[in-house]
Each structure stands twice: as C-alpha cells, then as structure tokens.
C-alpha cells in the first residue's frame, strides 16, 4: 500500500492498464503532452508514446464517435471529457450509439469505452463546471455508471471500468481529487492520513456493482456517492445517531443486496446526492427500497440533494447538501 491522492490513484490505474494491455488508448482534450487539466494523465504520454495518449480536437461528440469506432475495431479507449458538464455534445453518440451497438447489432459488435469525467461542485465552478449528471446516464440501458469517492476506490473501480467489455461512464468528484470534502470550504484537508488514501501500488480492481459500507450502524442507513460520501460522514457525526453509511460506487447496476440488507437492519433511509432532486438517481434508489423492503421501513425515505435549479457560483455552499442538512434529515427520520 502506498499513500496516494485521487489523482495519483487514477493515474496509477491508467498507467497499469497502458502497460498491461496494448489495446488501451487514452485521448481527450489536453490529456497528452500537458497531462490533463487536473493532471490525471500526467507523464503518461511521455511514458507510452503519442499514439497511446494523445490530445484530440475540442469536440466531445467527435471524441465519443472516434472512441466508438476504435472500440468496435478492437481497441479499448479511455477518453476524458474534461468536465461532465461538457459531455452533452457527446450525448447522442453515448445514448443512441455507444450504449446500443451491442443490442442493435444482435451482439455482433460492441465497444468497450470508458469515459472518465470530473463531476460535481465545490470548486466555485458555477453553472458549467459543477454539474453531476449521473441520472442522465443511469436512464440509458447499455451503459454502466460508476462514481468513485476516494483514492482507493478510484483506482480499483477505474481498473474494472476499463476492463469491462461494456461502455462505462466513470464520474470523478473533482472536489475530492486532492482531499476528502466534508462540506466546509474553509477547511479542506488533503488525503494524507485518510484510511482510503492507502492504495495498492500494483494492479488492483474493485468489482463493478458492489457498494462499500463505509461505516456500520443500526438506526438509519445513509446512501451516498461521490463527494457526498464524505459530507454524509460528517452529517452522521453531527447527528449523533448510529448510521450505516453506504458508498454506492456503482450506480448501474447498483448493489441492491447491500442496500436491502442494511434497510432491513435499520428500517430508515436517507439518500444524499448533489445533483438536482427531481428525477435524480436518489428517486430510483428510494423507489427500489420501497418495492423491496416496504415492511422493514419505520419512516419515510428522505432525500438530501442539490436543488432543482442550475448550479450557482458564489452561493454554491447553500446549493450543495451540507452536513447540517444531512444531520437534520437523519434526526427527522428517527423522530418520525
């Protein structure tokens, strides 16, 4: 085990994939010589060559389409969409093409692309450098959706995503690249000393579709993903209530069993995500819980989410779920 921040962990996963599999190529905006605006692909071009890690023209639709073609012709492209907010020019290629090619060709063709994309708020990114558009993809059959939250799972999940023969959208909470985020913009620690900053140096994989139980508890289940895992951890602490915290990690397909087992134990549930509430993935989790464990529930399922508005700039701390809002939701759930 080596201590890494999330950027180093992601870089390590990419490095090992490039080394182990000649069919892996990385491309996207600024990922080559420069190593990416967040430095995730730093030094990889220098190490593996310009044909394996390269800059593309600034066109996400073209990046996705090119990756599609490479994927059906035997390569395993790992592309970076510089901000998740900019994935929408590629939306047609992802929704109508990449996610459907296996189906529409009767299984003759498939394209194992991984889209890495920094997502989420907390960096004063305003409308268009802060969104967390996972629900726009969880509603698209044929694509897997993964959301890492710490260096350890970033490396393990990215490895699994690249090795998956299905296309994967891999969200990276950019607020957590250099440290966990507990909801306090004035006090942002680094990953140093955090247990999840311990990352295997060699090849390492976390199976897709498995959630991580961050902490066990008995009174309420809190489900979160991405940066909200850490905010939820703080919220739980503030509530003073024994909560089981589940980091979902993979949204499609999500780990139903871990959720069901936990709800059967606690009987209560709070779901936290930073994307807008309406039609957010929390709604899917909530519906699924009431379908599967209605008789275990002792109070209504609660969601703590971003508001149904565009993502703001200077007021983003009132937009993002805070530890206080989460603590209040947990307490209300108990008092119901």
């Amino acid at each position, binding site marked *: 085990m080596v201590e890494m921040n999330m950027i180093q962990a992601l870089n390590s996963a990419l490095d090992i994939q490039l080394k182990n599999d000649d069919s892996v190529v990385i491309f996207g905006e600024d990922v080559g010589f420069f190593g990416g605006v967040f430095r995730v692909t730093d030094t990889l071009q220098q190490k593996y060559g310009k044909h394996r890690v390269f800059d593309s023209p600034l066109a996400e639709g073209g990046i996705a389409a090119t990756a599609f*073609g490479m994927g059906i012709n035997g390569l395993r492209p790992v592309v970076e969409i510089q901000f998740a907010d900019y994935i929408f020019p590629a939306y047609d290629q992802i929704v109508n093409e990449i996610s459907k090619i296996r189906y529409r060709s009767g299984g003759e063709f498939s394209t194992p692309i991984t889209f890495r994309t920094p997502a989420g708020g907390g960096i004063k990114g305003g409308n268009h450098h802060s969104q967390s558009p996972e629900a726009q993809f969880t509603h698209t059959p044929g694509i897997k959706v993964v959301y890492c939250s710490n260096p350890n799972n970033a490396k393990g999940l990215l490895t699994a995503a690249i090795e998956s023969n299905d296309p994967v959208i891999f969200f990276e909470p950019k607020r957590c690249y250099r440290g966990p985020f507990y909801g306090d913009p004035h006090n942002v620690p680094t990953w140093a000393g955090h247990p999840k900053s311990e990352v295997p140096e060699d090849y390492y994989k976390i199976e897709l579709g498995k959630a991580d139980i961050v902490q066990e508890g008995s009174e309420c289940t809190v489900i979160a993903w991405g940066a909200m895992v850490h905010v939820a951890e703080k919220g739980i602490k503030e509530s003073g209530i024994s909560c089981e915290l589940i980091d979902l990690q993979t949204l499609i397909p999500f780990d139903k069993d871990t959720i069901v087992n936990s709800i059967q134990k606690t009987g209560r549930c709070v779901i936290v995500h930073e994307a807008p509430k309406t039609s957010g993935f929390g709604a899917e989790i909530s519906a699924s819980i009431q379908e599967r464990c209605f008789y275990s529930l002792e109070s209504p399922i609660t969601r703590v989410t971003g508001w149904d508005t565009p993502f703001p700039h200077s007021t983003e701390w009132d937009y993002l779920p805070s530890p206080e809002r989460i603590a209040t939701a947990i307490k209300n759930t108990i008092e119901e």
Partner: protein
Amino acid sequence: MSDEDKANKSTPFRVGTPPARPGEKPTFSSWDFQPEDLKKLDPLKCTSKDTEKHAYGLLRVLNDSNEAKGEWDPKLDPDILRKGLEYMMKLRIFDDRMMKMQRTGKLSFYMRSLGEEAIAIAQTMALEEQDWIFPSYRQPGAQFVRGRDMVSMICHCIGNELDNVKGRQMPVHYTYKEGRFISISSPVGTQFSQAVGVAMASAYKGTDEVTITWLGDGTSAQGDYHYGLNFASAFKPPVILNVVNNQWAISTHSNLATGGVNFASRGLSYDIPCFRVDGNDFLALYSITKWAAERCRAGLGPTHIEIYTYRAGAHSSSDDPSRYRPGDEAEFWPGGDPVERLKMHLIKIGEWDEKRDKELTEKIDSEVMAAYKEAVKYGDLANGPFPPASTIFSDVYEEIPWHIQEQREELGK
C-alpha cells in the same frame, strides 16, 4: 439575377429552393463535364490543393455515349464489369420485390437504393476483403459484394426468428460482421465520425485495412460530418469519406442543406484531397475509390468524395415524393440511370447483349422469389415466429445484470 436570387428578395433571409416543385418542369441543366476534363493524379504524391479542379468539377469515365474515356478509366476486365452489373441488377430487383412485400403488409417499412445502386457496389468492389464498410441505410448493396445471402437479409427485414439483429431494428438496418459491414443506425451521420475511429484503430494495429463510410447531402449538416472531417484531418487515418449528394433529404433539397457551392470542396479547408464524382458512373466510382484506397494503404490518410447523384425513388416506403418534387424528375437527371449506363457500356464494347440481360434478369428474379419463400419459412411479419421475447433482455450488456434479469422474470418468457 437568378431565379433563386429573385425569390429570395421576397424573404428576409435566404431560404433555398429546389429546381422544381410538383407540376413544374424539371430544370436540370445538361452537364458540360466530360471524362477528359480531369487529369489523373498520382495518389502517392497528390496534395489537397492539387484536387481543387476535381472538387469543383465532376469526375466521369463514361461519357454521354457510355464509352469509357479519359485518364480515370480503370480499364477493368469485362468479367468485373459484368459482376458489377449483376450486383446492381440484383439490388434493384431485390428492392422492387421487398417494396412490393412492404405494400402488401409483409414488411413494416422499406428503403430502396433506386438510382444509387452503383455507389456501394462499385466502391466495395474497388476495396479489399479486409476493408471495413460503414454504411448508411442507402448502401445495403455492399453486402452482395461481400457475399451475404439474400435469405439472411430478408429474415432481418421481416424481423423473424432468423433475423441476426434479433428483431430489434427496423428493416434495412443490416449488420454483417462476417463481411466487415458494420451495423446501420437510424440517427443519420453518426457513422461518419465513428468510421474515423475504426480507421484509427486499423492504423494503430498496423493493419492495411481501409474504412469507407457514407452520409447524405442533408446529413452533412450534422455535427458528426464535421467531427468526422476534422478528426480525419487531424489524425490522417485510412478512411474514405463520402457525401452522397442525391439532391433530396426526404423533402429537403440540397439547396436548403447548405448555402455552399458544393459538398466536395468542403474538405479542401481540412487539407483532405477532394473529388466530386458522377454517382451514376460505375467506372468513375470504382476508379476514385481504388485511388483513395491506394492513398490510405500508403499511409497518406483520408479522401473526401462528393458522389453526385439523384435519389430516383422515395426516401422510404413512408414517403411520397410527388408531393414535393415533379413526379418525373428522375427521368431528367443528366447522369441517367447507373444500371442502364453500365449495361449500355458493356453492350457497346461487345461484352453484353439484350438477350443475356433478359436471361440474367429472369434468373435474379427467380432467385429473389426463392429467397423470399425460404425466408418466410422462418416467420413472417404477421404471424411470426419472431425471435424469443428473451432477446429483449440480452445484449444490453455483455452479461445480464440483476435488474434486467428481474424484469425478464417479470415478463415471464
């Protein structure tokens, strides 16, 4: 002032108009272009700038008397020409039969290649077996060249239990991996930029594969056309990028698709060699494709081709072109009919005659009928059998995840 300019005086901004509307006389001017106009360029030395005349002119081999002339004559063996003629006749007869089946309710939908048969057939014949075909819905003819069985094609169109697409796509959305013919998608133009990726992968792996793709004049308005050209320009992979300008995108004439001069020349600013070619001239299509493939295989990258033709039929079985263009417009197309032109050329050089033509027509006709009868043994559209309902749930992912498995169990089939 042209008629169009005058017409535009009545609107606050330009709204392109077609040459003629229903009830008006088709107004195609005759072509000044002749096969001797354009020099053959050295594929291994040519730059995009050298192709300016070729982008604004019209590359032809067959002249108005159906004689092969000029430097671009590929001088093909008559056996190859007869094979090309046979594939084109086969496609036309196949299309006619399928359209009849659609009219009698045996197919849900159909799209013919009428008037455009030479394109995919000549171009695929000019390529090698290892080359990738990335078609739109108007290039199914490539499958004949690659040896696909008609029974299998019809089973797809019906969506019966032998449909290799497993009843998931509308008719004419073929996939034929064995023939390196990549699955057709309904969203127009997506294949164009994807083809660049296919070609980049071929180059990456060090193979000598070439990828060819097509889209229409209307579709060239899509971002994917421009993504494709620009990525091809930036990475120079072995890809042949064709814009089939058949004048009409359903009811939208190419004058509305762009205000530009033509489609071919657009590639010049991307530093890609550009050609405009007579799309009803089998020999010209063969010749330019061979030329482009040679460039690709030498590592010199893409070629951009506007294929100038006319969509002689309706867009699809759901379309009625007499509502937006003169019903007899196709007869006035200066490029004539591609099947007829190749046939007349072969007759002219003493390699074909009307008797053989009639015999071949009858032979193909009976083959198509026999293929249809064979195909419906595996299910027709009204009665099935169709692919099992379980195929709804497979191939979404490599393995069926729990949530889809649960839904399959809910359906109970």
